[in-house]
């Protein structure tokens, strides 16, 4: 392990780390990096002096190996520059967070090279024939390397699933019009809230019926209902969990999330769900952000490659937009409130003692996933930049000059994250969950999938299918 620094709370209050959070939390680093890319793209675009597209390079369609090598040779300088830029930004953040660069950089180089291979496989003109989906391929490669081949532990320094996906989400904001967030946000919130509450109480009540401790039942419920591992760990701290309880929830979230990454895109395709509708369903049903993006991006690719005849309506971007609105706006941002409410229940009902414990309302902000701020700011900036352009001009000028390079960088960041999921998932290292927690969590998964499907496809199906500018 190479991390050395700590995030000590302010000693005079014992609460948050104050302003130091701006450089001690990876959420804020995702904001800085994502916004730096967005502002740079905007400045280059508005000055008319070129585009960030030069550096956002990735393999394009190829059919023979010499063609791929030819592409690589012609763009070698761009790839080196792209790697160097990512390495400087992510490496700088990792250094401040306490990692040693001599551990982070080789690890990140491995992540970048594997990502290139994943991109190249996805750009092969026979990829759809063999159902090669880059996000799923990235996950499989990672799982193979970590579980079959085995990698030294020090390489974990560069396998930062959450850091990469948060940066990708900030970049995603640049491609999502702010007006769309305002228009669709309330529906996303309504749908996500219904499913979250139903899932939480299913897991909690089934868990209690099976004799599981109240706190563990609540941690499992939050993991299934809100945002997976992040929610489980936040609620664990809020309710004063026994230290063996969070790993049980983490194991169940990780295992079910991986199953759903592979299952949801293919089920949605078999049901011919429009991309926006499928994105909403995946948004209500997947647990962790990164896992959901892997599923939704795979579905977008499946539809674009396997059904270009229009038998499935919608674009890959619509799937990502609907997913993001449900998951980020509808679920992630409420984690502080879940933690606060459950801490009240814990203090006044579950574990009354004489220690003077008090629920802290401040945790609603302290636990707020700050990368969402970057996501909203990036959306506002690009929406402002696009103001005054007609839809035709937007597609001709703004999209290729400003939005497309940021989408390109986002796909790289997400690919780093998908690979890192596999590279950090060592099944033998996960804590044993036990039968009762497994069945309680699985009951929630079933309710979540069915209710999420009904709301996404039957109740709001038309709405999500037509999600657009």
């Amino acid at each position, binding site marked *: 392990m190479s991390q050395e620094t700590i995030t*000590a709370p302010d000693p005079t209050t014992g609460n948050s780390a104050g302003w130091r959070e701006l450089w001690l939390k990876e959420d804020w680093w995702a904001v800085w990096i994502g916004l730096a890319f967005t502002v740079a793209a905007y400045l280059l675009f508005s000055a008319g002096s070129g585009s960030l597209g030069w550096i956002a390079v990735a393999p394009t369609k190829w059919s023979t190996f010499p063609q791929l090598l030819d592409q690589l040779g012609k763009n070698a300088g761009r790839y080196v520059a792209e790697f160097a830029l990512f390495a400087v930004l992510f490496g700088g953040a990792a250094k401040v967070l306490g990692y040693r660069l001599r551990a982070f950089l080789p690890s990140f180089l491995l992540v970048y090279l594997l990502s290139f291979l994943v991109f190249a496989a996805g750009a092969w003109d026979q990829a759809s024939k063999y159902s090669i989906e880059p996000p799923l391929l990235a996950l499989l490669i990672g799982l193979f390397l970590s579980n079959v081949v085995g990698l030294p532990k020090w390489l974990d320094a560069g396998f930062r699933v*959450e850091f990469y996906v948060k940066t990708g989400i900030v970049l995603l904001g640049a491609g999502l019009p702010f007006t769309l967030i305002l228009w669709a946000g309330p529906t996303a919130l309504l749908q996500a809230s219904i499913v979250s509450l139903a899932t939480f109480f299913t897991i909690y009540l089934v868990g209690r019926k099976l004799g599981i401790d109240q706190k563990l039942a609540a941690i499992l419920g939050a993991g299934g209902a809100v945002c997976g591992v992040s929610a489980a760990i936040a609620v664990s701290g809020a309710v004063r*969990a026994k230290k063996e309880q969070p790993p049980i929830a983490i194991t169940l979230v990780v295992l079910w999330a991986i199953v759903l990454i592979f299952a949801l895109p293919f089920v949605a395709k078999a049901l011919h769900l429009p991309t926006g509708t499928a994105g909403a369903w995946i948004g209500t049903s997947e647990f962790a952000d990164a896992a959901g993006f892997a599923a939704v991006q795979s579905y977008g690719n499946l539809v674009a490659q396997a059904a270009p005849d229009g038998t499935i309506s919608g674009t890959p971007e619509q799937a990502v937009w609907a997913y993001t609105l449900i998951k980020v706006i509808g679920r992630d941002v409420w984690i502080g409130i879940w933690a606060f409410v459950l801490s009240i229940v814990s203090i006044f009902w579950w574990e009354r003692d004489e220690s003077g414990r008090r629920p802290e309302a401040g945790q609603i902000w302290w636990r707020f996933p700050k990368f969402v701020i970057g996501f909203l700011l990036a959306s506002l900036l690009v929406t402002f930049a696009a103001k005054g352009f007609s839809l035709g001009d937007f597609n001709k000028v703004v999209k290729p000059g400003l939005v497309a390079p940021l989408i390109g960088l986002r796909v790289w960041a997400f690919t780093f994250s998908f690979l890192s999921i596999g590279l950090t998932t060592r099944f033998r290292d996960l804590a044993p969950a036990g039968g009762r927690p497994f069945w309680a969590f699985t009951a929630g998964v079933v309710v979540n999938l069915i209710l999420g499907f009904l709301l996404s496809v039957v109740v709001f199906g038309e709405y999500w299918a037509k999600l657009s500018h």
Partner: protein
Amino acid sequence: MPALTPSPVLTSASVALPRCGNCVHFANAPAAMEAALPGLATMGSGFGSVRAQDGLCALHGYYLAAWDRCARFDSKQEGAPR
């Protein structure tokens, strides 16, 4: 591997309140949390905002908030009454 019991940053003017975050039994270094909680780094993170300043209490075996408290508080601050 860093130590599981980090030292708080204290100024001469600081008076540490009797909160878990200021207790010798409390540790919350992000990488140490990732090592102590298997799978945390897989689809979560020790460095994320949602974790706030939560950490592990070596005395009671809890994962809890830095603003939590108990009767066994033992200040990290040198010279503090115990």
